[in-house]
């Protein structure tokens, strides 16, 4: 064997920043790997693809992916992405962030962007915990779990995120675990082609702060748990996919529906109301390709 092919995902990564900050057995890297595969396979135009993260372990994804990448403030990736997309509609905009970032402090933006059907793709790595700050309860943490802010076990009920974003208006909703690498990549490739607000939740191990504290072993143990306890149910009602500490994990593509996205609706309304007076130019055009 004379030549070794390059690792096909490397061109999508900022290898100068490797190794990543993520712990051994952390699942975030696996999701990024799937993301890179999806970029590869879907042939999406990388020049016009931007990625926006909030703050958290997952929030660091933007920093490892070789795209125009934005590490914003905690919880605000979605409104930042909204501005990016609306000002420059040629961009494909992916939001990649953690469960806490997107559904705790960022919860309002999540539901409002879903309502407006902004054409952004949200990838939520759900490790059921606030990892970066040391393992506090997230809105996704199931009941009876030990966290640093619930040392005697959680009791706050947790969100069923697919259900919530569907109720808010998302047109595409899927859930996988880091065990489901091919399905993740497939879903990601799918949403690049789907206009409107798409949401992919990926359950991911945080051995350091979730599993260990709850005597659930390491990352690999969690992967095995995912393998054993995941049930693929495409199209199932999202009201039935809530998560518990040890229960089955319903995965699959739950929602895939069609609805005009925000910019299309705006365009149609202005055409109707203003006719020829409507100037259909994007905010960024003046500055674009400035070089």
């Amino acid at each position: 064997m004379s030549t070794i092919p390059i690792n096909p995902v490397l061109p999508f990564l900022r290898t100068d920043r490797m190794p990543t900050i993520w712990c051994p057995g952390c699942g975030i890297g696996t999701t990024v790997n799937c993301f890179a595969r999806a970029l590869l396979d879907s042939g999406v135009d990388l020049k016009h693809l931007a990625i926006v993260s909030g703050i958290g372990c997952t929030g660091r994804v933007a920093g490892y992916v070789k795209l125009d990448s934005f590490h914003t403030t905690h919880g605000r990736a979605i409104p930042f992405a909204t501005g990016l997309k609306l000002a420059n509609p040629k961009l494909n905009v992916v939001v990649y962030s953690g469960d806490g970032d997107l559904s705790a402090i960022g919860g309002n933006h999540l539901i409002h962007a879903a309502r407006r059907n902004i054409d952004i793709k949200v990838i939520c790595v759900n490790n059921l915990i606030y990892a970066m700050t040391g393992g506090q309860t997230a809105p996704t943490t199931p009941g009876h779990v030990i966290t640093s802010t619930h040392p005697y076990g959680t009791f706050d009920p947790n969100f069923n995120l697919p259900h919530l974003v569907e109720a808010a208006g998302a047109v595409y909703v899927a859930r996988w675990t880091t065990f489901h690498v091919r399905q993740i990549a497939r879903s990601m490739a799918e949403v690049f082609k789907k206009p409107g607000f798409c949401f992919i939740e990926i359950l991911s191990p945080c051995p350091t702060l979730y599993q260990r504290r709850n005597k659930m072993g390491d990352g690999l143990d969690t992967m095995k748990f995912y393998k054993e306890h995941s049930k693929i149910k495409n199209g199932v009602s999202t009201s039935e996919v809530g998560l518990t500490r040890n229960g089955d994990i319903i995965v699959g593509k739950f929602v895939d529906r069609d609805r005009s996205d925000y910019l299309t609706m705006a365009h149609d309304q202005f055409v109707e109301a203003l006719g020829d007076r409507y100037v259909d130019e994007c905010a960024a055009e003046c500055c674009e390709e400035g070089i």
Partner: protein
Amino acid sequence: MAKGSVSIHVERCKACGFCVEFCPTKVLALSSAFNSKGYHPPQMVAPEKCSGCDLCGMYCPDFAIFGYRLNAADSANAPDKEATDAR
């Protein structure tokens, strides 16, 4: 003869074991050797069984391994500079 092989970037590996566990044909095992960070990267223990399916590569959270088909190895791809330190 093996249909595929893997390339391992030893220094990036954090020994999570995902690649070992999810290789469908059980080609890999964590070695007893350390990398400079103190982790045991995987090694091929049954290279002949490797199909080059790259599942290991897809699971790896640290971009430290990937699989490829051997008949594809002669293709026009340039050698992976990154990967050369890897075997």
